[in-house]
């Protein structure tokens, strides 16, 4: 149980700077998801907290102690790796108890802790098995178990679900979240999957190119993305981004007025989430749809703005919409509250 503080953390490998200064305050018991595309430095950041990578500059505090120079074992953390990293020649029981054995705990105590963790994770019948005799989900649980028995103050997860199939992933992410809440242990969780980020996080850190684009609750990030990148990365399908401009209190794509906008006249990036496009008969925004992907509950429509063959638009409408002809036209409106504007130069959010 501890809070984790990152102060202006930087990392470079030789001349390559991968992390350009990240600040974050993680409260005790909070579940933080670090999300971003591959190569954004999210795993490196986690590994620095774990002590597996050195910190080029900046400070990491775990609890109230500066942890920069501490060995991983002295940081009171436990880590779950992407490939689980179970010791292949040890049984589940030995795998889970190995850290405690090194810490020289008495045998009876190790046994009791392993039993408790196994019970919590429903691993009891599997304790004598070797990792290769387990399924992916079971291995994942053992890796969790190994982290739990150590009763750390911080859990670190490095894309722990990416090797599981989709269905198991949904189940495991609920289990992980439930477990973390029950144990009340601070958790840092790295993923590239924005759905995991949305569903699991108390707060998320959206990373891109070695900087934190936005730190906030999932709904915050979804409703008020602070940068163009966060807007496009969070949400599926991705937000539509149009080159637009503000003119006399109106935001316009070319000369189509979309909605009210404050601020100076000039070019902006206009973002509209596909699910916020509402079908209507008389609308400014008309699209000719070329592709329809019915998902059952809703339908994804892909097309171009009518009259502008180079401006693509994606909409997600409730219900089933099939293409009756090769292409059809559809009109959209959008609530003013659902309009996002970004500075085309800096990518920062502008007030609407």
């Amino acid at each position, binding site marked *: 149980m501890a809070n984790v503080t990152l102060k202006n953390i930087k990392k470079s490998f030789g001349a390559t700077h991968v992390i350009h200064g990240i600040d974050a305050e993680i409260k005790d018991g909070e579940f933080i998801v670090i999300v971003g595309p591959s190569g954004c430095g999210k795993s490196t950041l986690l590994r620095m907290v774990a002590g597996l990578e050195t910190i080029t500059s900046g400070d990491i505090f775990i609890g109230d102690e500066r942890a920069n120079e501490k060995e991983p*074992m002295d940081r009171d953390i436990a880590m779950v790796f992407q490939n689980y990293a179970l*010791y292949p020649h040890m049984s589940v029981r030995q795998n889970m108890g190995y850290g405690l054995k090194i810490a020289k705990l008495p045998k009876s105590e190790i046994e009791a802790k392993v039993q408790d963790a196994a019970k919590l994770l429903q691993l009891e019948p599997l304790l004598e098995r070797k990792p290769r005799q387990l399924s992916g989900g079971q291995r994942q649980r053992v890796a969790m178990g190994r982290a739990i028995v150590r009763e750390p103050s911080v859990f670190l997860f490095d894309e722990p679900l990416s090797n599981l199939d989709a269905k198991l992933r949904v189940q495991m992410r609920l289990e992980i979240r439930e477990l973390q809440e029950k144990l009340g242990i601070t958790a840092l969780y790295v993923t590239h999957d924005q759905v995991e980020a949305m569903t699991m996080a108390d707060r998320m850190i959206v990373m891109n190119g070695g900087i934190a684009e936005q730190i906030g609750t999932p709904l915050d990030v979804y409703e008020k993305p602070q940068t163009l990148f966060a807007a496009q990365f969070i949400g599926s399908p991705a937000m539509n981004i149009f080159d637009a401009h503000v003119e006399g209190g109106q935001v316009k794509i070319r000369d189509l007025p979309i909605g009210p906008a404050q601020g100076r006249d000039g070019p902006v990036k206009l973002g509209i989430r596909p699910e916020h496009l509402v079908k209507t008969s008389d609308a400014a925004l008309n699209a000719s749809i070329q592709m329809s992907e019915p998902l059952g509950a809703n339908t994804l429509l892909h097309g171009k703005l009518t009259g502008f063959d180079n401006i693509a638009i994606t909409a997600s409408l409730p219900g089933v919409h099939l293409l009756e002809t090769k292409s059809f036209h559809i009109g959209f409106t959008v609530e003013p509250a659902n309009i996002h504007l970004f500075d085309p130069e800096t990518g920062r959010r502008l007030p609407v």
Partner: protein
Amino acid sequence: MEQRSGMVEKRGMGLWITHGFMITGVLIIFFPIWLAFVASTVTQPEIVSPPMPLLPGGHFWENYKTALLSGVNVPVATMLMNSLIMAIGIAVGKIIISLLSAFAIVYFRFPGRTIFFWMIFLTLMLPVEVRILPTFEVVAGFGMLNSYSGLIFPLIASATATFLFRQFFLTIPDELAEAARVDGAQPMRFFIDIVLPMSRTNIAALFVILFIYGWNQYLWPLLITTDPEMNTIVMGIKQMFPSGDDVAEWPVIMATSILAMIPPVIVVVSMQKLFVRGLVDSEK
């Protein structure tokens, strides 16, 4: 199913042919060994009078007893013991040293790491014979002639084994080392608890190969052991050959040859399972 039954039909003929080939091959390879065995069970006059006997005679115990207990220069039992100590010394020594050096090369970052690796790798290209004179000089300088240490130490470093272990260690995922670090294992603890058990089958495979390598050393023991008490069996057989006008004790020599073959066979057969596993799959 159809294809399968077709295969079985085809095998009907193929089975005989392949077995025929294999049995012929085995007979050809086995024949000299059989002759050696036959020769070790008959008397000297029976061997030299043509035609050579092809069936075992009745002097098995007698000849083997002579060989084991008195031999020609030195009892074969002594030579077997010498060979065993040398072969095990070389095999175990090579494995320990190459495991440790491969561990250092793979898991530690130290200045000149690649240079060291390539230096070790380069020695792969130098067979014992090339460096035998300087080695002899060094061993003689240390006063290790006619000793077990003289037999073992010059052959104890193995670039091949180091290289093989290095390749194996590289296939162990980094995450395992990291998990061990998070679990609090110091490097040597990680080596003993994780790396060693994972290399089990590789170690067994190498042990078999290196044991036979050590057992079959000929030139080196021939050079540094002048005392018959220190002779190893492979070179000892040669020493038994008559020089000048002596009469060769062929039945005893043949009994010695058969005895020399037994330990490597035992090692190979007893470790066959692990050996094959070590060569075929690596457990990860």
